[in-house]
């Protein structure tokens, strides 16, 4: 999908759908980021207007306008440069991210476990992020929240941001599958080891940029293996980002020709990955 095609997918209200139909926050945020990286202006302006108007009073964003709760998509929006989104709107978004964590790591929940005499689950030792507040933390939303906070830390470093990034990265390392890499966030269930997925392995590695752990080597090997066999656009995008974060993307790598970039986030992330290769980084930069 070219820039023109991405622009043609924009809805009259300024937002983007995943494939077609109503505007959703996630594809709109990714499309705006991608078009910013390409220097496009008019579609970006309309997209930013849609995003600003969708922000909820608590500072977060709903997945789409008919949903009355803020969610994980707030982290994707927070990757937008504050001078584009608006400093105040961006600051409130970061506050929403900082105030959100998986329900299993909340003090109330830990006290409940203690009162019930249940042994503490080691998986809940570190606070990650949920898809929706009121549920547990998982790899996908935790990775996106870390990316948003890492970007914010480059502008305004605070102990709170450092603490949450550290907690989130520890959460990811704890949830890594035994063979390396990540699935949705359940490395083992009822004593059975679970297998990693390509897309979440890429996300986890992208969020662990700059982290050091002996476990990272296994995850990087798994990611390289996935990259050679995987045919899913979303997964290939995230695997490239994950390997780039650790300077491990094979030189001259090019996605297989038969990969179908169907959704707006898939196309947008491809543009963002290519932009990083061309020195225009809107994910970490």
């Amino acid at each position, binding site marked *: 999908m070219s820039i023109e095609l991405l622009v043609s997918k924009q809805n009259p209200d300024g937002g983007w759908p995943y494939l077609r139909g109503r505007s*959703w926050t996630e594809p709109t945020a990714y499309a705006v980021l991608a078009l910013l990286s390409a220097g496009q202006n008019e579609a970006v302006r309309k997209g930013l207007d849609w995003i600003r108007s969708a922000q909820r009073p608590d500072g977060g964003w709903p997945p789409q306008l*008919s949903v009355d709760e803020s969610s994980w998509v707030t982290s994707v929006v927070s990757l937008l440069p504050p001078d584009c989104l608006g400093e105040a709107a961006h600051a409130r978004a970061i506050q929403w991210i900082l105030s959100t964590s998986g329900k299993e790591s909340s003090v109330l929940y830990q006290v409940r476990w203690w009162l019930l005499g249940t042994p503490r689950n080691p998986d809940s030792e570190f606070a990650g992020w*949920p898809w929706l507040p009121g549920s547990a933390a*998982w790899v996908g939303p935790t990775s996106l929240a870390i990316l948003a906070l890492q970007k914010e830390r480059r502008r305004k470093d605070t102990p709170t941001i450092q603490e949450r990034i550290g907690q989130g990265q520890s959460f990811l390392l704890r949830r890594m599958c035994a063979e390396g890499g990540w699935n*949705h966030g359940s490395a083992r269930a*009822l004593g059975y080891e679970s297998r990693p997925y390509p*897309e979440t392995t890429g996300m986890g590695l992208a969020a662990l940029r700059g982290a050091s752990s002996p476990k990272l080597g296994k995850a990087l090997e798994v990611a390289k293996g996935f990259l050679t066999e995987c045919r*899913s656009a*979303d997964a290939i995008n995230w695997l490239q980002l994950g390997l780039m974060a650790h300077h491990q993307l094979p030189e001259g790598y090019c996605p297989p020709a038969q990969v179908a970039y169907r959704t707006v986030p898939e196309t947008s992330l491809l543009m963002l990955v290519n932009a990083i290769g061309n020195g225009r980084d809107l994910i970490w930069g």
Partner: protein
Amino acid sequence: MAVTAGAVLAGSSGCGEDIRFQPSRVSIVRVPNYDQTLYDTVRRTVAEHAPDVRGRNILLKPNMVEFEPHSCINTNPLVVHAALEAFRSLGAATVRIAEGPGHRRNTLDLADAAGYFNMIPGFEDLFTDLNLDEVSRIRPTRQFSRLEKVYLPQTALSADLLVSVAKMKTHHWTGATLSMKNLFGTVPSGVYGWPKNMLHWAGIDECVADLHSLYPRHFAIVDGIVGMEGNGPIEGVPKPAGVLVAGSDPVAVDATCCRIMGIDPYKIAYLRLASGEVHAHLAEENITQIGQNIADVALTFELPPYRAGLRLGKA
């Protein structure tokens, strides 16, 4: 509760009040393999139940979980294609396919890898990703879970008949995943995430019962040709059961599947919740079997860890 033969059975609610209900009809068809004979088998099986589909919009909801073409984790695409052709031949105005996988975001890539593109001509045009569909906010009509509201996809809500084309699998949390648990795939991950963890916090069994009440126009087909036993619904192992089970009453269909699997349906919490106070449609004597008898096809599925108590006949 006394049960008498006849078109309408009577029971007592326990408060001296008579409850009258229709017996449910459930087909059990022996199908040893995934082959071309399935098309005729599925068409005849659906027709036996004479669902009112002429001129209606039908939505097939398979169970698509993983990028695996040859494992027993997904509803076999041949069964889905056979169902598509069956409902078309019975005069449906439209037959579409839709699913919202719970763990993997890239649904079309999953469908491609799982063999749906190869098996079903024009699959991409027939398919809706329920995770990313338009949503409406709904309040459960009979609320069992802690969810006071749930966002559901328009494609599922607007179908004249939702056909759950499920897989016969054990499930480490609920005991068994069949046509009713398959409705979790209609809850949009675009709102709830991958996995749809909010449903776990609100009570898995209770949410299954809520979803059952939210889709009253519902038909069930369960692919037990090769099911899954052990640590299902993902990490289990294939169990060739050689059956297809179908009917208009998902509670009766799932209860029948449980008996075939050697699981006591009264011990499956969502079946107890969805079957009302007297659990009328769980009782084997209240279900009219068409085709094979349960005893002729029954097997013993290995149960998931810590679920040995679900075994049929175990006190």
